């Protein structure tokens, strides 16, 4: 990313101002049934300013980084704040003043691979799948790498730089059953640039073997029996539940927009086995999938404990929402592109592990389901959620049974979490998520397996 000394421009700040230079770089390589259909790189970068004046915000951005362009962006953002401010009937007070300083980089120290080496890497995985599993009807292997690099200063005196990359390989295997395609996808990878995340294609092969075995069982899968059932949601689903169904309802802007969580603060909303935290950067001694040290408003990022032993404790905040609720900002304000304004976003949202063993949880169920993987998830301000289930199994008399066809689970999260009766002692993180809320943004989700009651779709 082009280096710009932003401090030179602080003399132009006439009100609360954030100035951010950002560059997002992505690499995409894809093979569809052996055909190299995608082979692209892209870079999107520029500068933005956001100004707060008497309760109104102005924002402006440009991809140009010359001195006059940066100056004009600060002026345009200031003019925009004044345009709205001059029409406001009631002004608002100032934002909380915070100052933080930090530099973080997860860039690799290894030599960077060329595009050809990346394409050959993905091709080797594709060849392996084609050779080892000749009965597949189809396969896709896609690489997606994203580097997000930022440099920010604020009129409060905050400054930070960050380089947060992530690298993922998405593999879908498809087999035919009675003329119908049956497929299963799996994501590999996580935080870091490609060279640090993927050592060699063969490292993925055991995971692909497991994916194939699941697919073969799914090919013989049965429809789930629709209704409210006792289920073990594996770690990936618990993480999505934490993010989609609880996390979003406790983002302070959603709370102000009428979320059900507004009425529940300080109340029992879940089983005492449930503690749910939006981690800033480090959880249980490990760096999270999307580490945030200072947010895009210049606030030091702190862990936000949302539910503590079943009690709803707090919300996630930007400076403005923290001011409204008269609490400290939590460092949750993040923007996706240089041309996006910071919004209240989750970072790494997880249910904390408990003490049960997964096998004991399964053994405790006479008739239910073990649900492993989701293909999408959605929830709303009531905490009613829906997750698509890509992979799951019946549980009969305490043992895993047949695989099930794709289905959906749903429920009201604050009710479902009250039915949690066991929480496993293992923690699993996923960093492939891209959350949508006006802008997309990478998020981490984590959790143990939880045993609970949910509605499952069927036929």
């Amino acid at each position: 990313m082009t280096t710009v000394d932003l401090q030179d421009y602080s003399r132009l700040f006439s009100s609360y101002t954030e100035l951010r230079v950002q560059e997002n770089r992505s690499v995409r390589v894809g093979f569809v049934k052996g055909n190299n259909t995608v082979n692209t790189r892209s870079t999107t970068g520029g500068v933005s300013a956001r100004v707060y004046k008497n309760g109104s915000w102005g924002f402006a951005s440009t991809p140009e980084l010359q001195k006059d362009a940066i100056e004009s962006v600060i002026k345009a953002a200031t003019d925009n704040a004044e345009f709205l401010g001059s029409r406001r009937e009631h002004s608002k007070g100032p934002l909380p003043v915070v100052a933080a300083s930090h530099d973080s980089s997860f860039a690799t120290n290894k030599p960077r691979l060329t595009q050809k080496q990346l394409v050959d890497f993905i091709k080797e995985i594709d060849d392996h799948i084609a050779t080892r599993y000749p009965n597949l009807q189809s396969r896709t292997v896609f690489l997606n790498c994203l580097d997000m690099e930022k440099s920010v200063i604020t009129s409060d005196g905050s400054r930070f730089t960050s380089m947060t990359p992530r690298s993922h390989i998405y593999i879908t295997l498809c087999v035919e059953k009675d003329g119908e395609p049956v497929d299963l996808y799996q994501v590999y990878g996580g935080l870091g640039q490609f060279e640090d995340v993927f050592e060699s294609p063969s490292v993925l092969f055991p995971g692909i073997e497991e994916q194939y075995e699941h697919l073969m069982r799914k090919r013989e899968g049965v429809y789930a029996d629709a209704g409210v059932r006792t289920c073990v949601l594996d770690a990936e689903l618990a993480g999505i539940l934490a993010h989609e169904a609880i996390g979003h309802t406790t983002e302070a802007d959603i709370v102000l927009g009428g979320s059900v969580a507004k009425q529940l603060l300080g109340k029992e909303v879940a089983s005492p086995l449930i503690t749910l935290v939006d981690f800033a950067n480090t959880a249980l001694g490990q760096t999270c999938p999307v580490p945030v040290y200072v947010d895009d408003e210049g606030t030091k990022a702190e862990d936000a404990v949302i539910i503590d032993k079943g009690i709803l404790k707090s919300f996630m905040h930007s400076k403005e929402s923290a001011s409204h609720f008269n609490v400290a900002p939590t460092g949750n304000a993040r923007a996706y592109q240089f041309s996006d304004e910071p919004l209240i976003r989750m970072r790494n949202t997880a249910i904390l592990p408990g003490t049960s063993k997964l096998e004991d949880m399964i053994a405790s169920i006479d008739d239910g389901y073990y649900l492993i993987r989701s293909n999408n998830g959605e929830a709303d301000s009531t905490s009613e959620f829906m997750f698509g289930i890509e992979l799951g199994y019946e549980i009969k008399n305490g043992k895993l049974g047949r695989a099930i066809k794709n289905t959906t689970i749903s429920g009201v999260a604050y009710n479902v979490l009250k039915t949690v009766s066991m929480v496993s002692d293992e923690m699993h993180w996923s960093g492939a998520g891209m959350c949508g809320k006006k802008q997309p943004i990478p998020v981490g989700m984590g959790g143990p397996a939880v045993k609970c009651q949910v509605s499952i779709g069927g036929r």
Partner: protein
Amino acid sequence: MRHDVEKDVRIAKRSLEALMKAGADKAQTNLSISEKHEMNIEAGEINLLRTTFNTSLHLGVIKDSRNGHIGISSSDEASIEKAVSDVMDIAAGAHPDEAHDIAERQEPAEFCKGPLEPDLDAMYDRLKSFVATVGQRYPTINLRQVILSFTRSNNYVMNSNGVDFKTFKGIYHFVAMFSASEDDKVSSLNGTGVSMLDLDRELIDCGSVDMLLKQSVEQTATRPIEGKFVGDVIVTPDAFGSIWGFLFGSLTDGPVVSDTSIYKDKVGELVAGPQLTLHCRPVADEIADGYFVTSDGYAAQNSTLIERGVLKGLLLGIYGSRKTGRARAVNQGGAIVVEPGNQSLSDLVRSVERGILLCRLSGGAPNSYGDFSGVAKNSYLIEDGEIKYPISESMISCNLAEAYKNITGISRERVDFGSSIIPWIALSGVTISGK
């Protein structure tokens, strides 16, 4: 905004020339210069005005049947020079595939639609009026996020076969997300959007905005459906995409090339009820927010995708067409116009013995065969031809490919979203389950 068209054309041409000089067999450039003005309402207040300028330069090359693409957000000489060098390396790394190609030469053309500049005062006044009207008409509504924006974009598509298209477009977009709360009860988040060429009408009167606000007020007190039954579903215009997206997605390059599309050999066959005729009309006057040029570099044309239930074609681009030997589509889908039916919406409701009015769907991605299930959100139970009450915690499941064939009626009324024009469509044979 930089309205220096001549300068933009020089950049696009210079990029194309540089690609050919660097050794490309074929090349395409797509330069987009855009400017967006956006007013935001957060928690009921107009609190943010954004102005963003964007440059997007996309370069594509084919060299020895190897394909490479690069996108950058700058258009200065040094950036272009580096991008040209990089994209040649990217292409050199690809595995060859004879199916990659660029559009053949067409007559150069300029396309214009919409206003050139935003009316910021009118935008502010319309938003303020919207907040006031919602407050008076629906006092229990919380406006979670409301956005009114104007985007002006100049696009230049050129390729080494002689394609030379310029598009100048200005469009307003309005998006509203809201819920209602009464006592301790909160309705599900609801929302809709509409595109328009002017601000002549009040925002609340656009698209389905007023209808959805009214419904949200009713939806603070919901009940789950009891039991499980097979019934009818009337799909509202706002829920259309959730139900019919599977069909459109299955017609595109990805599923057809990977051989996972159940529709790849269905052209000429009945794929929906014979009541359904559906067009893609990106260049029609009735579509405010269409497109003139496909991403492959063809001048888009209107087409009929489904005529009286029969699939008339796939939605393949150049690659998918050449790879599979099937016809290339004359557009890239979208801009959907569904022909109206011959029943009123109230007649459609009256014809339902037991079912739901599906206003929004929170659904899992269907599998490749179309099996799917999802939660009916912001929706209503229909019994004995009457809308009974708003529902919650109720799911629907079906095979979408089968459901498309079970159309029992299409309404005369349609909603104009600016980017599509959609009626209410009733389907039978859907499994509906509650608690």
